[in-house]
């Protein structure tokens, strides 16, 4: 019975924040309500983490192995149910959402000073939508949350965003919304196609993941339906030709928005690929794997080059996400257990390192009122501990051993080598690019001659704790990744099983 509460807490918390502001404006109360809801969410996820048994069940049968389930009838005419379920994969994602939710609330403590309640309403609802995406296993419900979370995110960017290069945040928000919504509709059509296909085969309407997974689809139709899913996820991940919204949305979102976008919204796409696209269309996905991996390679290099060319610090980090997600895409479509485990680790580690970098850029912006790296430089001695943290996160982002990112990238490349050696060889070369743009970031912002002698406001306790917490998580993940890998192993084993049913595939 905990699953619906995981979902309800953010939604109720958000409404409370808003109502509180209407009754008594301009108090810090909404922040506390939001923080408490996020802590509650995290605590519940951790309880599930500790109490559940996610160790690998060796017999991978045809029924999915859910740790807990919750099902209510919803729209019976179409066999749609309100079906939530949790396994290791969703648990990791929900926990990550809880952690990043706390960070998002804490890092906007000072930044957001107007319409606090409404801001937290939106923030909480994004989180709620994301939790819904991670828990829903009815395809209709999944789509429901997938689209629903866009609306509050839109508001976060449009109303509390920053101008960038003369462009208003509203246009960035609209771009983000149109990209994701239109591609989402493609997915809806694919879902419907799948459901009707199942209906013609069995005479039963169902949107349930477990049931639809058994539907054999072949031929052109399977390609069309698979591409519908893939495009929707590819826009969100993002995969290169569909990444147009990402730099703008990131650059112009408020810090909390960027933290959420990079930390969890991008991860919903990888989750969707792992949970839905691969198991629903195993054979087509295998046939598609070379193309997907190529797209991943393009993403690694294109994102890296793009990042190198940016002057806006947040755009740089955003473009680096494109590059990192390229690795994730390669890992997912290589389909080996090792690579899939690497994907999970990479997602978690990237969430922390990107969140850390975005928080740092938010703090720089609060102090310098610019995100233009050309106007920075020489900040190392003037900012106290902040540059030190920045260095650590940049190192994490470029995959230095000792951080989770290293383990993730290493596992992906190592695991994929069996299947696609050339892809791995080329992708490894992409790591060089990431070293270049990361160092450029450090160099331009923190090194060089200082522009002024005066020191800038140091980190206060809140900021220090926030960055330290994120850093500890990053390093802990690098030193003992087994915590996460144990939990995800069962789920990844299942994905691999579905993906590798065809004997032609050397998995």
């Amino acid at each position, binding site marked *: 019975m905990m699953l619906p509460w995981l979902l309800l807490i953010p939604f109720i918390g958000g409404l409370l924040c808003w109502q509180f502001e209407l009754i008594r404006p301009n108090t810090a109360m909404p922040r506390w309500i939001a923080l408490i809801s996020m802590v509650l969410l995290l605590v519940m996820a951790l309880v599930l983490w500790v109490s559940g048994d996610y160790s690998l069940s060796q017999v991978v049968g045809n029924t999915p192995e859910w740790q807990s389930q919750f099902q209510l009838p919803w729209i019976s005419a179409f066999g749609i149910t309100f079906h939530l379920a949790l396994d290791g994969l969703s648990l990791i994602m929900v926990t990550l959402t809880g952690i990043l939710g706390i960070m998002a609330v804490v890092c906007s403590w000072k930044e957001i000073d107007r319409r606090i309640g409404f801001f937290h309403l939106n923030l909480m609802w994004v989180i709620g939508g994301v939790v819904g995406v991670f828990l829903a296993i009815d395809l209709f419900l999944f789509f429901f949350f997938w689209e629903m979370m866009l*609306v509050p995110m839109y*508001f976060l960017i*449009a109303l509390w965003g920053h101008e960038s290069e003369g462009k208003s945040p509203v246009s960035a928000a609209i771009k983000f919304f149109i990209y994701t*919504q*239109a591609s989402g509709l493609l997915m*809806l*059509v694919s879902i419907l196609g799948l459901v*009707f296909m199942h209906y013609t085969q069995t005479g039963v309407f169902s949107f349930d993941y477990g049931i639809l997974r058994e539907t054999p689809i072949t031929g052109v139709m399977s390609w069309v339906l698979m591409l519908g899913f893939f495009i929707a996820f590819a826009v969100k991940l993002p995969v290169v030709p569909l990444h147009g919204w990402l730099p703008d949305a990131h650059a112009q979102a408020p810090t909390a928005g960027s933290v959420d976008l990079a930390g969890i919204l991008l991860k919903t796409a990888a989750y969707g690929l792992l949970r839905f696209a691969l198991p629903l269309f195993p054979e087509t996905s295998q046939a598609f794997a070379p193309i997907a991996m190529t797209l991943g390679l393009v993403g690694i290099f294109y994102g890296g080059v793009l990042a190198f060319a940016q002057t806006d610090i947040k755009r740089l980090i955003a473009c680096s996400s494109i590059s990192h997600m390229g690795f994730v895409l390669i890992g997912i479509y290589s389909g080996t257990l090792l690579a899939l485990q690497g994907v999970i680790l990479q997602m978690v580690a990237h969430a922390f390192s990107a969140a850390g970098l975005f928080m740092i850029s938010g703090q720089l912006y609060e102090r310098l009122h610019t995100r233009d790296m050309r106007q920075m430089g020489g900040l190392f001695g003037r900012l106290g501990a902040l540059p030190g943290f920045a260095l650590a996160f940049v190192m994490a982002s470029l995959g230095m051993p000792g951080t989770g990112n290293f383990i993730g990238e290493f596992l992906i490349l190592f695991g994929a080598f069996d299947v696609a050696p050339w892809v791995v060889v080329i992708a490894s070369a992409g790591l060089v690019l990431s070293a270049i743009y990361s160092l450029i970031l450090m160099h331009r912002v923190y090194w060089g001659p200082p522009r002024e002698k005066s020191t800038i406001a140091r980190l206060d306790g809140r900021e220090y704790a926030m960055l330290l917490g994120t850093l500890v998580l990053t390093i802990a993940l690098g030193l003992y990744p087994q915590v996460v890998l144990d939990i995800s192993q069962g789920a990844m084993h299942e994905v691999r099983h579905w993906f590798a049913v065809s004997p032609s595939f050397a998995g």
Partner: protein
Amino acid sequence: MNLTLSHLIALLPLLIVCATVIIVMLGIAWRRHHVATASLTTIGLNAALVSLLAVLTVTPIRVTPVLLIDNYAVLYMALILIAGLASTTLAHAYLEGFDDQKEEFYMLLGCSVLGGLTMVASDHLLSLFFGLELLSVPLYGMAAYAYRTRLSLESGIKYMVLSAAASAFLLFGMALLYAESGSLAFADLGARLTEGGGHASWLLMGIGMMVIAMAFKLSLVPFHLWTADVYEGAPAPVTAFLATVSKIAVFALLMRLFLSAPVTDMASLHTIVAIIAFLSMLVGNLMALRQDNIKRLMGYSSIGHLGYLLTVVVASDDLALLTTGIYLITYVATTLATFGVIALVSSPWQGSDVSSLKFYRGLFWRRPYLAAVMTVMMLSLAGIPMTAGFIGKFYVLATGVEAGLWWLVAGVIIGSAISLYYYLRVMVMLYLHPIEEQQYDASSDWGQRAGGIMVILLALAVLILGVYPQPMIVLVSGATLG
């Protein structure tokens, strides 16, 4: 034919509305009183709505050769009556400040509702034409009700001229069909086509002309040119009425025609309708992109929405019937509430409507709940989950996918993507910081007024149906033809 008690029961809603109109007219002749007239109309329409429950006990029943009162008709009658009621409450607040005769408005509205009721129950060309004219003629007067302002007058006249042209098409088409089939009943139209005796081209031309006439009323591309001007010029409650009642009535009729008249089985006709649908989706949404006037924007957006809905006419199967009901319910609730907000902001009447988008800037910070209602409506129009509009769009897509109409499905997706831009623009406008002091605003006690309560109820309905649509689906699946 003998009229029995059950025939009378079946006619109750029509009779009650008819009586209401007459009483309102006599009342005005006796003594002018705005509140009393509005209340009388409200009571009459409510009574008609309640009487539908009695009608359900005798359906399906054929009353006279021209009217078929079945569950299908009852559903759309209920929808029309609710939309009529909503427009009445809006009109009441709106006309408070009107500096001319206010009372005749309700009489016109009643007449128009009567026409709508007739249309949804007709399965005969005679009652079709009768209903359509009864629906439209009072609308000319309503659109031009504030005839001292140029826009309103222009809107009324434009609507009249184009409606008259559409009626001419309709009559000519009907004549052709009659000449070929010798009957005016839907079921007989083109029956000979299946036997192979008729001239298919005459039949096609006849039915084609009828479809054109209805496309005029539904403002489908390329017969949409009047829409934006009429929507903009007509007073807000009238636009609400026009955008809902006339669309429900005409669309319900079109659907009945396509499902029951054999003449519509021609493949070429379906192709024509599919092209109209596709064009409407694209053109309507593209035209809406650059609008700064919210009423014009809604006018163009309605073109797009009717285009989506036309997918079901092309499919014409069981699921299509269900989709029609669901989409119309969601669309009507959404449209009514949107125009409700516009009418509330424009009430009481001050010479013109507050329809420029800039007046809505920052509404959230002055009237948070009103702006929240508007937000929900924009999201519902855009078809975002948690709102009823999503369920409607879901069903349209399901119908399209089931019937394999891939072009139309693509059109819905492209249209939705385009439409997001302008819906979001309206939505974000509500939340931006106001630049200067606003001249116009909904009165601060709007939430306690009838119109305000109605708008809030509609918003709740849109949210609840969006999250739990089961009751609506059950209701609509009960509304079977015949």
